[in-house]
């Protein structure tokens, strides 16, 4: 009997997450791109938004240690503010594989208050196929159910492990890229897209005091 059944009977709930985490990034430095349309503030209002800005090591002063490894010039800093007010930074990278654009996210400088729990949680990469326009950023995340179906029907050979109630990809970048490009245009590969609308200048300006703090 699986752990999830045990937990269910214990009356516990697992975090239901449909995206697929990966131990390794989808990109090599040579794959990375810059697109100025990525920069800006996306989201509905002041309380819930994504702020993306390019991290240029040459012009960053007092950059926190956690960011110092991102010195390629191709890193974007993503700050996600949620309705609860919680904020978190992520390193975001844009890359192209064949004809398609992708973004790779990885959390940076996070703080899990429960210390014993923090010993048991390890950060992973998540990536999405991306469409970028002047007004929108559309993200197509890979679907865990799709991956599970591929694994159970023996249709793929990619390195993974089952952790808790989900799969984690353990394949290295080259293997990941082959896998992703093979299925990139299969309609069943993705969950419903997230469409992030760029805030207009007036709305974005109301965020400005917060954004200055986020940049420090």
């Amino acid at each position: 009997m699986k752990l999830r059944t045990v937990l269910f009977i214990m009356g516990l709930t697992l975090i239901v997450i449909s995206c697929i985490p990966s131990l390794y990034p989808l990109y090599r430095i040579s794959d990375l791109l810059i697109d100025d349309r990525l920069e800006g503030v996306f989201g509905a209002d002041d309380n819930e938004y994504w702020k993306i800005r390019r991290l240029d090591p040459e012009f960053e002063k007092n950059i926190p240690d956690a960011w110092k490894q991102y010195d390629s010039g191709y890193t974007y800093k993503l700050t996600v503010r949620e309705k609860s007010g919680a904020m978190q930074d992520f390193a975001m990278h844009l890359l192209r594989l064949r004809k398609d654009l992708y973004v790779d996210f990885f959390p940076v400088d996070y703080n899990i208050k429960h210390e014993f729990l923090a010993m048991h949680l390890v950060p992973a990469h998540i990536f999405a196929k991306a469409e970028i326009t002047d007004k929108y950023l559309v993200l197509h995340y890979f679907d865990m159910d799709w991956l599970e179906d591929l694994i159970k029907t023996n249709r793929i050979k990619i390195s993974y492990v089952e952790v808790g109630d989900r799969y984690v990809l353990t394949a290295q970048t080259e293997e990941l890229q082959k896998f992703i490009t093979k299925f990139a245009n299969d309609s069943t590969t993705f969950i419903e897209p997230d469409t992030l609308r760029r805030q207009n200048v007036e709305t974005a300006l109301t965020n400005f005091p917060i954004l200055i703090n986020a940049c420090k």
Partner: protein
Amino acid sequence: MKARTVLIIGFLALLAASCIPSLFPLYTEKDLVTDDRLTGTWDAGDDGIWIIERLDFKPNTNPLNPDWTSPAEQKSYRLKVMEQHEGDTLSAEFVMHMLVLGGRYYLNYFPSEYTLDHEFLSWFMIEANNFSRVTVSQDSLVLNFFNPSYLRTLIDQNRIRIAHIRHDNGILITAPTRDLQKFMVKYGNEKDFLLSPDILKRI
């Protein structure tokens, strides 16, 4: 800097240093044991309060309930760890197993119930196993976690080969249980690998 601040910083540093997460558990079903003295409420000092319950599953014929035939699930404990942070009590739960390996007793912990403040961040966090040596008596629980610096040294000096990846906060062991057990049997009693014991007192 106040003494209290120094102590808190020291405490956080110790926790950060006492972490060797592993994708795979240290146990197979045949290694598991139980000890009734584990159950109860324990005072972990600055680490908070630990509540340990045995998940005492009994096979039955009710189709709505499972048949608990797996030793791993018959020999599970639920661990609830409550910590104090800035006046708030934070709680997280873990599935805990006790095992014997090379004549030594260990506890294996895996998170089962928790919340993170930032929902998007929670997408990225993979649950990992952690383990400690354990000596249990009626009134105390003595835990020895392992020193990741020692492991890092062994790896850097090519003295061991164990599958792992490095991430921002340290090392994640990706070796399967079989390799993990061999490693622990060989190094699990090295004094440089064992951190100072945490002594929990029964409440």
